[in-house]
């Protein structure tokens, strides 16, 4: 847990120090990628709760999900299909599902 928090803090500090931001044109891609990352993290926590956490699956899922989400939204944008909201909806639903699972697990434990 400590590792996770320390990693988060280091990442945040790096983000503050880096001089560039996301160009406005790519902000939607980036936000979808961010949603995918959050989804992966919550999925990982859920897996840890149920005891079948695998770091390989977790890491590969984390990067593949975010890259694929951004890529799909990009392609959709090019094809005139607004996949942005679809991706946000899908990830949002999954995040809340996982959150519910984690909450139930923690409540049962204590």
């Amino acid at each position: 847990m400590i590792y996770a928090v320390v990693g988060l803090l280091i990442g945040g500090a790096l983000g503050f120090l880096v001089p560039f931001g996301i160009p406005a044109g790519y902000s939607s891609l980036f936000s979808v990628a961010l949603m995918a990352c959050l989804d992966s993290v919550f999925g990982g926590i859920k897996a840890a709760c149920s005891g079948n956490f695998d770091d390989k699956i977790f890491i590969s899922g984390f990067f593949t999900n975010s890259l694929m989400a951004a890529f799909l939204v990009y392609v959709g944008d090019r094809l005139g299909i607004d996949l942005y909201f679809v991706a946000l909806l899908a990830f949002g639903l999954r995040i809340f599902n996982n959150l519910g699972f984690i909450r139930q697990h923690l409540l049962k434990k204590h």
Partner: protein
Amino acid sequence: MHFEKGRLSIACVCMVLGFMLVIQFRSTEDIRASQPTQRVEELAARLHQAEAENQALEAENRDLKGMSGDAKSEKITDDIMMISGMTPLEGPGIVITIDDSAKKAKVENDPNLYLVHDEDILKVVNELRAAGAEALSINGQRLTANSEIRCAGPTISVNNVRSAPPFEIRAIGDKDNLTNAINMRGGVADSLKVWGISLNIQPMDNVWIPAYKATAKYKLANRSSKEEETK
């Protein structure tokens, strides 16, 4: 929880996540800070500039008016102002209100026939001018020598200002002459009434007509000293 397996990997992932979160937060803040506020500031600055310009022009206008002490030149200026539509005028005249037809359009007829068009307004204005109207305005827009009456989608544009029906045409002139010119048999009123377009004429002892509000700009035309065209 069973995170013990890959602490380093989790730290890495969390680092990436934190990085992304902060970057996203920052760019959202940037966008929020830059776009709308910039636009508002720009518009506010433009408004201030326009207001200042307006005030300066008004002051100049007042000064010029005050300066021409010579009664004759003032008279000439007044006449020119009246002709050009730069001063509001009042006098006896008529107010015509034209509105779209209240009749239900028949299936076999073009629904456009039941609406007021720029041509209808033009015809009315033309009749009024021929009957000796001295000043005209349409929905508060003074008709000047350069005014257009033009169809602009569902609206009509006069002096580049759009307005929708009902159209109120004010005219200063001989009340009876103007009324008769419009009501002439086979004239404008007759042809519009066929389609149920309401045309209401109200003779009035005092009609007020606004001044032309925009400034006259001549970008291409220059004053010429030639009295006749030479080849």
